[in-house]
């Protein structure tokens, strides 16, 4: 049985250190440049100096660093994305996480020695797509979109020699990764083009007598009563009136938590388990990394008798978006 890598998010240097110090095997980061990664928020991510410090820190403790360059190069602006790949190679990251086939091709030709991972945004959900990417671009790992059941993940792993990384914890989205343009309808920007679903400049929260309104480019997308939990202000997580009924018409804010399925993930041979949340603060990264490290170690030590500890569920539940944590697609009965 292989022990999966625990891959944790770093939106900045303190978060990277929190991940490393709390037991991440690998951290992933993005560059503070023009929208080359899917968490392109103002003030987030690494410049050259903090990236160097972060990589030195992680490598000094024997951990790996991945660079997400996982948005899609916009026509005529490819040099921006090419430069990000060159920068990642110069910085000496352990791999780049790419989604765009043009960029995979560029990286393959320009930096053949640089390890390439297929991003979740690359939206490859079957082994044929993954093996094609391996044949064309020599990818060594693929991150699976969060739409597959455990038996489907197992089927993919059984038919490819590419390492498979799956999501283990974090906010869920509508999971049409790499294909979602929903926020463009309200804001003109989407994760795949501009690296954000709800650019902060389009978001307004307004306190009113009936509650807090969340507005996106002026469009009312939700209203929270005083003690109602809130979610990220994205269109997909808004409540809308449909046929005279107001409800989460697309999805309810929810977080994924695969702790209870760890023995299955070990059995089917996933290579890595990823934590979502480069936009979150070091406190989140520390808490989630520490908890998943403990859970993963326990599952590896004795998978047959593994049971999630209530303390783990409490720690993860507390930092979750939405009132529910779920196993997402991994455990749904239908396919």
């Amino acid at each position, binding site marked *: 049985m292989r022990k999966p890598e625990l891959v944790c998010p770093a939106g900045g*240097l303190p978060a990277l250190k929190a991940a490393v110090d709390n037991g991440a095997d690998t951290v992933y980061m993005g560059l503070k440049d023009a929208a080359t990664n899917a968490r392109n928020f103002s003030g987030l991510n690494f410049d050259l100096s903090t990236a160097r410090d972060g990589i030195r820190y992680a490598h000094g403790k024997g951990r790996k660093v991945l660079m997400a360059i996982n948005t899609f190069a916009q026509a005529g602006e490819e040099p921006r994305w090419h430069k990000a790949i060159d920068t990642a190679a110069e910085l000496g990251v352990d791999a780049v996480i790419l989604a765009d086939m043009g960029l995979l091709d560029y990286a393959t030709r320009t930096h053949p020695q640089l390890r390439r991972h297929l991003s979740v945004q690359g939206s490859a959900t079957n082994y044929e797509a993954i093996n094609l990417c391996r044949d064309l671009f020599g990818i060594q790992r693929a991150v699976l979109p969060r739409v597959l059941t455990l038996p489907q993940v197992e089927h993919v792993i059984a038919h490819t020699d590419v390492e498979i990384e799956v999501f283990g914890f974090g906010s869920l989205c509508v999971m049409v990764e790499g294909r979602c343009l929903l926020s463009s309808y309200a804001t003109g920007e989407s994760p795949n083009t501009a690296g954000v679903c709800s650019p902060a400049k389009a978001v307004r929260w307004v306190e009113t007598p009936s509650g807090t309104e969340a507005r996106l480019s002026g469009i009312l997308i939700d209203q929270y009563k005083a003690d109602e939990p809130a979610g990220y202000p994205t269109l997909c997580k808004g409540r809308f009136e449909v046929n005279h009924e107001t409800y989460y018409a697309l999805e309810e804010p929810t977080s994924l938590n695969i702790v209870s399925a760890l023995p299955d993930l070990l059995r089917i041979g996933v290579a890595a388990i990823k934590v979502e949340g480069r936009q979150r603060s070091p406190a989140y990264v520390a808490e989630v990394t520490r908890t998943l490290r403990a859970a993963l170690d326990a599952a590896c030590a004795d998978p047959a008798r593994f049971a999630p500890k209530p303390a783990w569920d409490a720690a993860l539940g507390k930092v979750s978006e939405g009132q529910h944590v779920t196993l997402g697609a991994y455990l749904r009965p239908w396919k």
Partner: protein
Amino acid sequence: MLPTDFRLPKFLSEIGPKLPQRPWSDALCASLELARFTKQLEADFSFLEGRTLRIVIEDLGARATLRYVNGHFRPAAGDADADVSFRAATADYLKLLRRTEDPDTLFFQRKLRIEGDTELGLTLKNLLDSIEPPAWFSKLVA
């Protein structure tokens, strides 16, 4: 060490707003400027130039309003229009200062509210997250 979860007595939130708010703004500005002068808070705040921030401590009925002008934090009038306002209780601000809680978690739980220019607030949050607090500061809020 202070307890982690507490809420100050309710009468404070009722009396607080009737008291002068200027001392809160003065104290916060003085602390920030002192920290910067002694190179304990080295960050580029230029994105705040000409902008006004308000920090409301709900259970204390206190509000600090500050403006960043010519590269310095200055107290602003309590009734000045703020570009962005943060609202939370004392205990939750302390958790943020101690870095034991992340702002998104408090936001999901409705314990931290942001009004006004969300991008300005997010940029400030991300800037503060990118700084490693000096050891004396961590001890101070512990």
